[in-house]
């Protein structure tokens, strides 16, 4: 569905993405992992057209997006929903206005029709009765849910999650992970989750990719990732993932466990 081909990006001489390539298959939940500053969020911004790559191509359903004009790019963006790390709710609007924003901007739906969609999307994220509240009146978890409801408002084909569990308590993290899984099953959407939270990654992923120093160093389903021999990946998993999912027989992992326990 989305193909990232040989993407390069640097900021003020500092290289962030170095020829990164990645495939996001339709209907999968791909988790993109990597250390802070490895270029995960930059990649997300390049895929959504918020940033331009220095070189490389992004293909969305057979269309190369860097060649598109603003109107064509916006047409692609209407197939996308994005949950930002900070939820990025418009603080001058109510929850209902936030969720209805895209509908208000790009459709001629009546107020009542929009209201119905708002209620429907809020119930999808297990949140009701908050329509008239302002974002400042919501807790962190509620803001993420509203952000997700807003991302769902236009029935996207792909949902991007930028660090969906960052800054949340463990119980709320678990609820958000459950929500991502539920939405994937209910709506059959393609999901791309950028995170360094290994609990969250293994909880939602059907496919995983690891980025290190601006390049993809591992790709596969969660089993393949656990059994991968790349030392950087194994170190990342060991220090982040719950012990019960680790493959203790993996010799690379055993080496790191030895170092960890010393």
């Amino acid at each position: 569905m989305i193909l990232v081909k040989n993407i390069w990006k640097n900021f003020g001489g500092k290289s962030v993405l170095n020829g990164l390539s990645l495939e996001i298959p339709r209907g999968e939940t791909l988790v993109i992992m990597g250390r802070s500053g490895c270029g995960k969020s930059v990649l997300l911004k390049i895929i959504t057209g918020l940033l331009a790559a220095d070189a490389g191509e992004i293909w969305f359903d057979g269309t190369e997006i860097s060649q598109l004009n603003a109107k064509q790019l916006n047409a692609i963006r209407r197939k996308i929903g994005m949950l930002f790390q900070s939820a990025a709710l418009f603080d001058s609007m109510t929850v209902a206005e936030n969720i209805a924003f895209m509908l208000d901007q790009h459709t001629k739906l009546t107020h009542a029709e929009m209201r119905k969609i708002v209620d429907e999307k809020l119930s999808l994220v297990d949140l009701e009765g908050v329509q008239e509240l302002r974002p400042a009146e919501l807790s962190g978890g509620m803001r993420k849910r509203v952000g997700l409801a807003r991302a769902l408002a236009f029935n996207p084909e792909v949902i991007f999650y930028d660090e969906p569990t960052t800054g949340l308590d463990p119980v709320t993290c678990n609820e958000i992970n459950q929500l991502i899984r539920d939405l994937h099953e209910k709506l059959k959407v393609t999901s791309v989750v950028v995170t360094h939270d290994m609990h969250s990654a293994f909880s939602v992923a059907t496919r995983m990719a690891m980025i290190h120093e601006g390049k993809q160093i591992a790709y596969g389903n969660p089993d393949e990732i656990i059994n991968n021999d790349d030392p950087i990946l194994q170190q990342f998993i060991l220090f982040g993932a719950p012990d019960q999912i680790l493959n203790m027989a993996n010799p690379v992992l055993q080496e790191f466990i030895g170092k960890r326990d010393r």
Partner: protein
Amino acid sequence: MLLKNRLHNTLSEIGQAWTLFFQTLVQIFRPPLQFDLLTKQLLLVGFNSLAVVLVSGFFTGMVLGIQGYIQLKPFAVEGSVARFVCVSVVKELGPMITAFVLAGRIGASITAELSTMKVTEQIDALEVMGTNPVKYLVVPRFLACAIMLPTLTIFSTFAGIAGGFIAVVSLFDVNGHFFLLEVQRNLFVASVLVSLIKATSFGMAIAAVGCYKGFSISTAGGAEGVGTATTGSAVISLIAILVLDFILNHILFNILGWV
């Protein structure tokens, strides 16, 4: 090397500011114009600034009246104080004081609002949802400032003349009827036009600087970045108003020969 970098950054910023300005002009003429957003900004810029503009104009006029009378009296031409107040307020101080008030009040608030939106990824969210941030955020603010600054200048000018009138008539031995007659005699259509041209230009400059400073902050700028951008916006707006005033005076009075 440091000087070269600073020069490079300054030129790059000027280029980006002009790019945003031209994008704004293009988006103004690209339908649809969202009247609800424009109305909200018109109220915010205009109605909410009216009281402070009236008070500023009134006291400026009073000071002008007192100073004018005191300075003109030794030459025995204190009768010209009305002309002095009228010409100064209409051509210079009306638009200038209004612009200064709005640069501090509205320009800084535009920057604070937009830079906070940038830092909290709200502007990115707008773009991802297929809405052009220049069209949605900049155009209403730019139009509101360009429309409301001349409107407020008219009020400020009247307040200034009223202030001058009250100060001079109540404190000195000047006939009120004579003062008003002198004002009427010296109030030309060209002067009012100069005032409105200046005010519109100042309004566009305040909005352009405010919006550019708000948009130019990096997402990682944080609260400190918002503060720096807001202060920078007010300072640059004030300087831009003074430079624009000089340029417009030169063009209108020196080149075109208006009176």
